């Protein structure tokens, strides 16, 4: 146990107590600050929506208030100092064809006001749902301006096109993807690289013989994995801290800034928080997937490193591992863009893809808590099986300098680690 603790401490110190760790963390912190505050930064440069782009609104007014259209138009365009951003067109109820409206490229919104001004029933047919709340609140404000005695809040109904997909949901999944895929991918790649390079460095210099003469191969194997996973946890926690700092910077910046930013555009984190009320559970699951998933990849990387003889040899061995990680990364990035949510959900259950895809799928609501637990159980079982398979092979391979073809070598090591009958090893 003493030697195990020492090996873990040594492995961790070797990674954390380095200039490279400090430099990479400075870069990660800066990237987090930039990524999380992108909306503020874009707003600063006048990015975002183009104020010159007009929104055309058809108004069906069935109330007796004939001035409603002009009053409402004035109110809506008031902030734009004379420019007509919202262009209103009056149309009669009989002329309105819902199907035609969805096809009509020249109309963005149709507002249908039925009943009386006191108790209106308002239906908003919208191709720009993000304007809905603004339209509703301004319309209600206008109605209040008439100072009607028996005024009652209007009943609003929002209607969207049949093929409408909530852009906020899509934006959310995309945000989740960029927020989770990249750090997960980087952390897993870093961890597997560390464990692999560490083992192959000891093996290729033959220092492994002196080490294994002092500690059992199993202790060495588990200590390497433990040190790497602790490193991942430390780096993960630091990344979360950077995200928190970035969020605080964003808040401080928006509070002190002369530029008035629209609500909700100050920080990507606050934006995501609005969509994920149960973000604590999401965070816990993301961390669990990260730990278990990284452990699985570490076990495989350690196995490959033990089988390799030189650094070059290890590069060949780890190629499939890196390709698998890359595949998971691209699925995570592109599946939401092309609407492949179903595909992503299925892939999240495949253990080799689970570490990267399951946290995104869960955070973006594609997986329920129950399904996420199933994913977690599957990968834990997979991890335990791989540990049982890998540990004996590692013991055989770590002191072997067999340089036969990779496939032959792998077969030999497995055969030696798992002889057909117990006597074969003792032949």
């Amino acid at each position: 146990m003493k030697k195990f603790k020492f090996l873990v401490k040594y492995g961790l110190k070797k990674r954390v107590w380095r200039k490279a760790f400090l430099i990479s963390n400075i870069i990660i912190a800066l990237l987090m600050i930039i990524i999380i505050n992108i909306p503020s930064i874009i707003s600063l440069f006048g990015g975002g929506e183009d104020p010159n782009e007009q929104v055309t609104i058809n108004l069906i007014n069935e109330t007796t208030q004939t001035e409603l259209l002009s009053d409402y138009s004035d109110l809506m365009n008031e902030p734009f100092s004379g420019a007509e951003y919202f262009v209103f067109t009056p149309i009669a109820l009989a002329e309105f064809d819902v199907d035609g409206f969805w096809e009509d490229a020249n109309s963005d919104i149709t507002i249908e006001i039925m009943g009386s001004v006191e108790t209106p029933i308002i239906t908003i047919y919208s191709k720009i749902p993000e304007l809905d709340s603004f339209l509703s609140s301004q319309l209600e404000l206008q109605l209040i301006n008439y100072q009607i005695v028996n005024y009652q809040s209007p009943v609003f109904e929002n209607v969207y096109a049949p093929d409408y997909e909530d852009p906020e949901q899509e934006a959310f999944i995309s945000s989740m993807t960029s927020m989770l895929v990249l750090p997960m991918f980087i952390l897993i790649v870093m961890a597997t690289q560390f464990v692999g390079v560490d083992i192959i460095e000891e093996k290729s210099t033959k220092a492994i013989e002196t080490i294994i003469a002092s500690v059992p191969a199993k202790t060495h194997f588990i200590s390497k994995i433990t040190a790497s996973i602790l490193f991942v946890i430390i780096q993960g926690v630091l990344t979360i801290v950077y995200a928190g700092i970035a969020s605080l910077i964003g808040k401080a910046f928006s509070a002190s800034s002369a530029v008035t930013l629209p609500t909700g555009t100050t920080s990507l984190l606050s934006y995501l928080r609005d969509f994920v009320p149960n973000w604590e559970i999401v965070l816990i699951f993301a961390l669990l997937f990260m730990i278990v998933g990284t452990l699985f990849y570490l076990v495989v990387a350690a196995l490959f490193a033990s089988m390799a003889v030189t650094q070059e040899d290890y590069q060949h061995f780890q190629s499939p591992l890196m390709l698998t990680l890359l595949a998971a990364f691209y699925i995570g990035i592109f599946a939401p863009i092309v609407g492949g949510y179903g595909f992503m959900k299925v892939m999240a259950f495949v253990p080799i893809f689970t570490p990267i895809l399951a946290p995104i799928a869960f955070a973006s609501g594609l997986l329920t808590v129950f399904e996420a637990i199933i994913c977690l159980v599957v990968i834990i079982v997979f991890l335990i099986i791989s540990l049982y398979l890998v540990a004996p092979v590692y013991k055989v391979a770590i002191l072997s300098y067999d340089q036969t073809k990779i496939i032959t070598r792998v077969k030999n090591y497995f055969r030696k680690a798992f002889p057909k009958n117990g006597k074969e090893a003792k032949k």
Partner: protein
Amino acid sequence: MLEVKNARMLYGDLVAVDHLSFNIEPGEIFGLLGTNGAGKTTTFRMIMGLLEPTDGEVLYNGNKVGYHNVNEIGYMIEERSLLTKISVKDLMLYFGQLKDMEPKVILERLDYWLKRFDILDYKNKKIKELSKGNQQKIQFISAIINNPKLLVLDEPFSGLDPINMELFVEVIRDFQKKGSMVVFSSHQLDHVESFCEKLIVLEKGKAIIEGRIDKVKKDYKKLNVRIVGDVDVDTLNAIPGVYKVIVNSNEVIAKIENEDVAGLVFDYIRTCKNIMKYDVEQATLSEIFIAKVGQSHEEV
């Protein structure tokens, strides 16, 4: 005591070590010789517990060698086995702590050994910055830093100049005096001959020579007669029992089959002029080694 009892090691169908047995007592230096691939490294690995013998066993003080008694053992492998990117100090702290040593003790002993090997200035240098000879010294220090009771040295002298070789021999003798068991392999047979008491010569995993060196030499009947003076090589060659005559710049060496032939050679020498030296000596270990290994090859 270290006991290797009927140890056999198979790699698939290849017999790496074939029913090998020997004992090493405390304070004894034991030589393990053999050509490349004879099974020396496999034997060392079995002694270290890195390989489980297919048959037989290896016992250290009556117990199986394992991680419970490994802290008392020092091991130096044939090739350089150092982490080249770290400093001498960090490497010793790493290897020493793997032997359950306290960092303070490691550093104290490291200073002592670096001073003794005259490389104290390299304490904070990275291993890769050191010459091959100095790396060899560091590797040797890593094997003895824990003051081992059993010292296993696989080719400790390879790549060393004569001065450093003597330094290594001196240190090994110090461990012998302290009662440590030393088992080592070497291709430099003159060194084996000069400072080890017992040996085994392996060939294809089998012991073809074993026992105390004096006995091995005695059992090997052939002798060398060194002569300085005016001798006729052809006449010398013609003496029955003289199987080879070597003419060096300052002496003639007659290789003879046994003790009886020495008398015949002496009878001839008495007839020669200017004889300055006549010396009958046992065959060198190197000769015995070459003769036995050659014989073993012929038998195959």
